[in-house]
């Protein structure tokens, strides 16, 4: 039995069926990539796994640590050990990144305002932060800024990975983390992710393009088309897509990005 098991997941958006029975088993220590053309259901998969209220689960289960996470609130899923790096991180005015991060870490540790021993100390916070900032080639000037407010595309994505590093999930879903990034940013992000790789972490990379997989080598690659997996295999699947795109499933889209100028 894998650590994180998606079984026959079906989901819809505004009455439109998007995921039509997706099954996937991820164990800690593994890196899975889900690839697919536009409209195949990639973002529905990530949002449904994390419990976005705009997505309706029509059937199936997602078992993690003995629980069906589909029955849990998004924050419960996160505290259980899941993490989603958003494709479009939202701007939240008025709340500083620092406050946000600390509150999230305290929540994860079960600190409810009473048991001070569970609280993240300023020293610990700074220590954790410092190491991760270096890897991501960031500085701490973003801390007093409001959540994602005024961040460039690259800054937003790096800030997502920073949050992942701080929150130490066991299952991390990276939703199109490479989109909109230049090659250097992709490298920094990949480096940070690779540093976190290990027997305690399972990773699900959701991507349209193969490029990020050059830097974060997947153990398994699954191809999602029209809400279903049409092909699963090892890294060779990504290589095949790199050459032929999604043509064999009737989609005229390549799996290589246009060069970012």
């Amino acid at each position, binding site marked *: 039995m894998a650590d994180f098991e998606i079984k026959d997941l079906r989901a819809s958006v505004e009455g439109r069926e998007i995921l039509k029975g997706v099954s996937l088993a991820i164990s800690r220590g593994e890196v899975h990539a889900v690839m697919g053309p536009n409209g195949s259901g990639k973002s529905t998969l990530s949002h449904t796994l994390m419990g976005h*209220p705009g997505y309706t689960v029509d059937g199936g289960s997602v078992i993690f640590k003995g629980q069906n996470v589909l029955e849990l609130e998004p*924050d419960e899923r996160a*505290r259980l050990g899941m993490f989603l790096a958003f494709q479009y991180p939202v701007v939240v005015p008025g*709340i500083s990144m620092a406050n946000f991060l600390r509150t999230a870490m305290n929540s994860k540790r079960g600190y409810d305002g009473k048991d001070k021993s569970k*609280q993240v100390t300023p020293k610990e916070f700074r220590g954790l932060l410092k190491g991760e900032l270096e890897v991501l080639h960031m500085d701490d000037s973003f801390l007093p800024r409001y959540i994602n407010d005024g961040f460039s595309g690259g800054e937003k994505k790096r800030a997502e990975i920073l949050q992942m590093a701080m929150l130490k999930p066991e299952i991390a879903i990276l939703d199109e983390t490479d989109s909109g990034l230049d090659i250097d940013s992709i490298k920094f992000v990949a480096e940070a992710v690779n540093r976190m790789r290990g027997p305690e972490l399972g990773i699900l990379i959701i991507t349209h393009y193969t490029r990020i997989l050059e830097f974060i080598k997947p153990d398994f690659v699954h191809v999602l088309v029209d809400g279903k997996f049409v092909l699963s295999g090892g890294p060779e699947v990504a290589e095949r897509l790199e050459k032929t795109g999604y043509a064999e499933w009737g989609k005229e889209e390549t799996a290589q990005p246009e060069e970012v100028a």
Partner: protein
Amino acid sequence: MATVPKVEVGTDYKEKYGFFVPEEYVFKAKRGLNPEIVKEISWMKQEPEWMLNMRLRSLEIFRKKPMPTWGADLSVIDFENIFYYLKASDKQSKSWEELPPDIKATYDRLGVPEAERKFLAGVSAQYESEVVYHSLQEKLTQQGVIFTDTDSALRDHPELFKQYFGTVIPPADNKFSALNTAVWSGGSFIYVPKGVKVEIPLQAYFRINAENMGQFERTLIICDEGSFVHYIEGCTAPIYTTDSLHSAVVEIIVKKNARCRYTTIQNWSTNVFNLVTKRAMAYADATMEWVDGNLGSQITMKYPSVYLMEPGAKGDVLSVAFAGKGQHQDAGGKMIHVAPNTTSTITSKSISKGGGRTSYRGHIKIYPGANNCKSFVKCDALLLDDESRSDTYPYNDVDAENVTLGHEATVSKVSDEQLFYLMSRGIPRAEAETMIVNGFIEPFTKELPLEYAVELNRLIQLEMEGSVG
């Protein structure tokens, strides 16, 4: 900006502020309002005759003026069922130790002496009708700063007092300014001499303890040329089943190049009617800032205003209102541009929850000849559930040339996207909502000294838990 430490959950208003101590009074006037009561108050205070006459004249004005027909519903106030004057201690103390034990215990519990030790330059504590404690740092006294209660000021600084009292807000300004002038007692009197900058805030704490009490403090602040002062007021009361009335008048004169900041954290219990007139006159290149937070009370009607009297004057109102169940916060601000080249901004943030109602009510008036003025108003309202209500009533009258005026307002609920994002990081729903609300009022919080910012966020959390009242 203020970062907010994790706060303790579970304490509520009742425990922290809503307690009361048994009533023991040196003097308690009879219920109700008549010339005899007014004479009695004046006699107790051994006031000069001009003040007694002014009080009696104001009582008549109060009798004649109709109740306002706009804003909140005030018809439930029974003016005859209120105690207009209560004296709890027969002298004013300069140390907390000298206070009657139960009064001292009250302020200890509210944390006022501790705050004084940590971060205040002067403190005034009013209990019912009279100021019972007063202090000011020696250094400021030497610089000529006067910070005393208003009754003492009438006695000790009669000329300064008479020169300014009632000049910014005359008794006939409105029904409640007339009432206040008739029965006023306590409040703060501040004079900051030319060029003196009081860098550390002065604070007054207003406490109502008795049932059916009416508190009518009167505050007068004079900032002489080039000076600066930051004055903070806080207020709480026990929770009774019958109502109390708080009707203050605050007059401020900000002279050339001076700056005054007046911060209020209003946290009356939800049986208090809070009907306050606050107005400042700002002269050449002077700045007046009202930072006005309204969380408590059953009904608040309060519109801090600035009269921009000479070129270069600047007025600023930053207002936050939180209305929970049974509360109506009718708040806002007024900017009266009398002189050309004056600027003003009003920023209002309001939150309604559990059937509460917030109304922004504002007035921008630009008089003929007050050319080249700029004024900007921004109102944002957050509605936390579908029982609550928010209104926006901005009134603008521009009679001058080359004026730039802007008004923006939004009303929304807590964004599902923001909530989901926070929850996806493991933050429980209630706490995520509180964070978003605190983020919403952050432009206000960041203007407060850190300790008050923390306190405000804590109060918001209490309100969000719905445990108040």
